[in-house]
């Protein structure tokens, strides 16, 4: 090619292809910088939050290393020392029970909405209500359970779990429906073409393909719910010893303990609050990490 062109035109072409110092180029650079700045601003509060939780909490947690996680909460708030055992157990049990309620319901509901309901009036209504439910403040969910459950059966872990399940449900429905939508239509067709019924296709082709997304969506919902305080305020009470039975008697959880201890004037209680905060952040982080690992492991297997 170049042999066909004179040197003159080659030089000209070279000049033409050089980047121009134009206003357009400058504007592009400014925008890129603004976006970088926005990303930085987003990260700053996160770094400060995590930084302060670690700096104030790590000392408390590691001073009494495993016993902070296992010992009961001192009866007297002014006592200094561990631990948060009952709150950790409570958080696990309450969140676990909430998951057992919300995840199967949510996944089944989403399968109905996406695979069977389609655009019928009923499914449109359900979808609308689920969206509205996403916007309901968590304290309202707590009040709701307080009125219909706690007033009748008293304070217990189940009350808190039901309130958390109400919060998780719309998130699970949405995440699952979104994942079902992403399953390629040609996989369904391939299954139908082999003489597979619709229900069997959903069970053996659609759900397995959507599973990694559904699992990580559900784990994020769980992590979110584990950190909720408001729904627990009127429903679980504030036990200081491990309450293994979530169906009976007052229970406690990490967010509730953080709330209690942060209000306290005693340095010992405040310390325990920071320790509980670090523990909770750790648990949420573990869930998020698991969600990541699960979805990337599935991605690799494909």
């Amino acid at each position, binding site marked *: 090619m170049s042999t066909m062109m004179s040197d003159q035109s080659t030089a000209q072409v070279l000049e033409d292809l050089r980047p121009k110092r134009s206003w357009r180029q400058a504007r592009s650079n400014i925008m890129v910088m603004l976006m970088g700045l926005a990303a930085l601003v987003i990260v700053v509060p996160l770094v400060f939050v995590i930084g302060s939780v670690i700096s104030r909490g790590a000392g408390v947690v590691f001073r009494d290393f495993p016993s902070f996680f296992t010992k009961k909460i001192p009866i007297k708030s002014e006592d200094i020392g561990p631990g948060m055992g009952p709150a950790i157990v409570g958080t696990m049990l309450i969140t676990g029970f909430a998951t057992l309620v919300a995840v199967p319901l949510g996944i089944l509901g989403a399968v109905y909405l996406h695979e069977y309901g*389609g655009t019928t009036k009923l499914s449109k209504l359900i979808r609308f209500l689920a969206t509205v439910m996403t916007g309901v403040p968590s304290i309202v969910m707590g009040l709701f359970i307080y009125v219909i459950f706690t007033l009748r059966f008293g304070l217990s872990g189940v009350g808190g779990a039901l309130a958390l399940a109400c919060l998780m449900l719309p998130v699970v429905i949405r995440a699952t429906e979104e994942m079902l939508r992403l399953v*390629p239509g*040609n*996989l*369904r*067709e*391939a*299954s*139908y*073409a*082999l*003489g*597979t*019924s619709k229900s*069997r296709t959903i069970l*053996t*082709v659609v759900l*397995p*393909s959507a599973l990694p997304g559904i699992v990580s969506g559900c784990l994020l919902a769980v992590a979110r719910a584990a950190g909720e305080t408001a729904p627990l305020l009127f429903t679980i009470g504030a036990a200081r010893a491990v309450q293994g039975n979530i169906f009976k008697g007052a229970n406690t959880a990490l967010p509730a303990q953080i709330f209690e201890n942060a209000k306290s004037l005693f340095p010992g209680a405040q310390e325990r609050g920071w320790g509980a905060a670090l523990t909770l952040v750790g648990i949420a982080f573990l869930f998020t990490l698991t969600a990541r690992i699960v979805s990337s492991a599935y991605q690799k*297997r*494909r």
Partner: protein
Amino acid sequence: MSQLQEHLMSAESTGNEPDISPAVEAVSSRPVFSLKNLEVHYGAFRAVGDVSLDIREKEITAFIGPSGCGKSTVLRCLNRMNDVIPSARVGGEVLYHGVNLYGEGISPTEVRRRIGMVFQKPNPFPKSIYDNVAFGPRVNGVKSKAKLDDIVEKALRGAALWDEVNTRLKASGLGLSGGQQQRLCIARAIAVEPEVILMDEPCSALDPIATARVEDLMLEMKSRYTIVIVTHNMQQAARVSDRTAFFTTEVNPESDRRTGRLVEFDATQKMFSMPSDERTEAYVTGRFG
């Protein structure tokens, strides 16, 4: 016997040269499908109208024609895959061994067990090669491991893929090349031992070498299965098929909407050498479409 058949036979018997094409002996084979005035609507839109033709046993029948002429739509009527599209309505009759597939009390699921399909884009499940092929038999209730192993091997051999994959049956089907994936889809389709295999542009996503392998495979499979193939590639239709149906679009002068129509259906050799309709001639010689 339909008019088309009579027309077909008379066309062959009055041919100028003595015809020794395989189509002549194939005339004796019985029809698997008889389409009678088939028409398909998508909502209010008439996509295809007035299609009548017979598809004969253990032959390869090709549907050719320009885009939007309804050849894929007609193909998808043969195993009720159009049911998946909510707005699709099918009129006329699709007789399969004399039974109207769109008649009352016919289960599309059972229809599809007998009439398999291979799609334009290779669509293996995100499962292992073995599980892809074993999927259909498992759905049909085969549980014994030995039996499944046997079916999988037979199907993969049938699809000329066994030698390439037998050492890695547990590997993902998505790790294969495009041509291998398409043959895996063929293996998956024949694992349920269908009578008919429908192929919707099975080679359009493949390179010429992979295409040649799939074409060889089709010719091999012809002794056991009835095959119907939709193709954009006229050379492909000429190479593999016994009979060819040419579809085109007609513009409705009132609504300006296009409706697919069957123009001509005849032995492939005749369709490509001396078609009766000038539109067919224009298409196969490349002057149109």
